[in-house]
């Protein structure tokens, strides 16, 4: 009797899981299947199960159209580079800032932490325009032959898409919270062995912060990959644009939905692959730090 009821519960749980999986998978399936159909077929099939099936006039024409309309490979490469560099620098800079706030005792550290946390409530859109003005005034060192010279203005470069997003209040707070949970006795033991602050950061605290690093990496990567407004405002050269700006190439007066679906498939694949590869670390980090993106 008990076995029968537990089988029923298991079946119900499985059904619920399948339903959830289907709910999340169907938009992706629709996107992929539609990327293989001409526009008229996409709209003809909507409203029936055919919308999720590769039936009718199936071809890779939309993918060919994508590469005719946008330099998709270039945009993908740009986004990959920008996102990875932002993640790598973000982990370094934000963990160091959090370490200083968590471990170093200095006057005003609590106030500094409060100010950092307070910046979380300011939406990016409110200071985006002033930021454009500022980045155009910033200096940069460039090689001119064998001479180093100063230039002014970061507009229309890769660095303007990376550096403003390296320091991140949320990442600092995440690292800070995690560092607080690491016993200070470990620092003290290292100090007895003659370690300085940087060595403690490098050899004691960071190696124990895997889940926090994974969370920050993922939470930094996604907005960097999805960034749209900022590159639109600061980048004018096509060769420097990221994938999301490329998506807006397709919204002309005559919209080609099949090509949009093909492009969406292409730009979703790297993120999906990344998620599948780091699925376990992602779930663990979300569970251990209690945040979600």
């Amino acid at each position, binding site marked *: 009797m008990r076995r029968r009821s537990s089988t029923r519960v298991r079946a119900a749980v499985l059904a619920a899981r399948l339903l959830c999986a289907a709910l999340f998978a169907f938009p992706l399936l629709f996107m992929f299947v539609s990327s293989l159909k001409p526009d008229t077929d996409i709209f003809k099939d909507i409203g029936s199960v055919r919308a999720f099936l590769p039936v009718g006039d199936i071809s890779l024409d939309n993918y060919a159209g994508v590469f005719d309309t946008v330099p998709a490979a270039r945009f993908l490469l740009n986004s990959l580079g920008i996102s990875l560099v932002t993640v790598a620098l973000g982990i*370094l800079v934000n963990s160091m800032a959090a370490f200083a706030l968590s471990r170093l005792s200095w006057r005003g550290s609590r106030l500094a932490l409060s100010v950092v946390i307070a910046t979380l409530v300011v939406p990016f859109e409110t200071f985006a325009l002033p930021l454009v003005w500022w980045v155009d005034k910033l200096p940069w060192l460039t090689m001119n032959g064998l001479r180093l010279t100063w230039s002014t203005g970061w*507009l229309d*470069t890769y660095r303007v898409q990376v550096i403003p997003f390296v320091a991140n209040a949320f990442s600092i707070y995440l690292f800070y919270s995690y560092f607080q949970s690491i016993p200070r006795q470990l620092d003290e033991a290292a100090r007895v062995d003659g370690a300085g602050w940087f060595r403690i950061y490098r050899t004691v605290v960071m190696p124990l912060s895997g889940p926090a690093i994974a969370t920050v990496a993922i939470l930094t990567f996604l907005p960097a990959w999805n960034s749209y407004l900022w590159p639109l405002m600061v980048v004018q050269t096509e060769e420097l644009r990221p994938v999301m700006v490329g998506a807006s190439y397709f919204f002309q007066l005559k919209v080609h939905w099949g090509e949009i679906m093909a492009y969406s498939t292409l730009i979703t694949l790297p993120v999906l692959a990344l998620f599948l590869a780091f699925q376990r670390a992602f779930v663990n980090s979300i569970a251990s730090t209690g945040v979600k993106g």
Partner: protein
Amino acid sequence: MRMSAKRTLRWGVAAALVAAAAACGSDNAGGSSGDSLTLWTHNAGNPQELAVVEQIAADWNAAHPDKKVTVRAFPQAAYNEAVVSAATAKKLPCILDTDAPTVPNWAYAGYLEPLDIPDDLLAKQLPSTVGKYQGKTYSVGYYEAALGLFARKSALTAAGVRVPTLEQPWTGAEFDQALQKVKAGGKYPITFDLGTGDTGTEWWTYGYSPFLQSFGGDLIDRTSYKSASGVLNGDKALAWATWMQGLVKKGYSPQKSSADAFADFVNGKSAMVWSGIWNSGSLSKVDDGVVLPPPDFGNGAKVGGGSWQWAVSSSCPDKATAMEYLRTSLTAKNMAAFAQKQNVIPASEEAAALVPGWQPGGEKRFFLDESKELAMVRPPTPGYPYLTTTFAKATQDIVAGGDPKQILDRAVAEIDRDLKSNDYYGF
């Protein structure tokens, strides 16, 4: 385990620094330099039109090697944001294209310079391809666009309805009767698709304000440009709003169309669809497809006028060259090239004569004649961005079934408040 984590961290830091150095070193500054002018266009993602823009620039560059023009293309959906950001950083290009209704706002904001183009050259243009504000010309286009009522002739014939012409469009009553009869035939799930699936603000104004103007209303009082009172909430505007709402209430139009109403029309889901010349190339997929003028609701049939036009920025260090570029590029050959590559109306008769189908009697001619006779430009005021947002929101609320009087009164109050708080934008 710890050693491996340490090594990973070390490699991570090293990789970050190397990658950062690589990223930051990939410098590619934009903007104008001493011997070249930069030109911005909204055509990224539209290779046909971009090819013509690039060809015009290439022709110029061949003739003026000391004053070359560099083309930078942006996606249309994000173009205005890019221009406004560049204006903030004082990095506007010398030559830029702009959607016609935006011109007064950018002129008022000081982004644009009045154009120095001879009147005899401008006189050849379709009036709606010249962007004016406060009596000065700020922009000029190589082409125009227009809307039309795309229909299946068989649906009209079966319903026993007269096929309207530009000379004799349907009256409001005739159109209502046509809708009634086609719907009664029961062949099409949608009788008349307004295309409400397009959530872009400008479509709602470009597409539906001509109906309001045909009823006798408008977005703003064009005698003073200081209030919308009376024109957007008067009896005529109320009649328009009731009619728009009635299309949905009577089951002629869906409250929200699909994302591509024209594809539905091609697939036989609708008998008629309100759409633009950009879809006319797909009309051949419908055996008996025709393009008709909009109905005349009492104040003349109307369509929206003003498409993409070209301007010179006020911050351009070499305005004379930029003006010369525009002046010399306004040739029939260039205008014809745009009309050959895509579905747009050539901006002059001279250009129309060069493109098959656009001559009098040609199969595309309808749109040129319609544009000449029925086009009404959107209100040339710097307050237009607020007008269009408010009007689009009001129209969406009306179509969704809200109380037309309340919605229009609220829209008028909001528009008047904006006009007042901006000192009536210089009017």
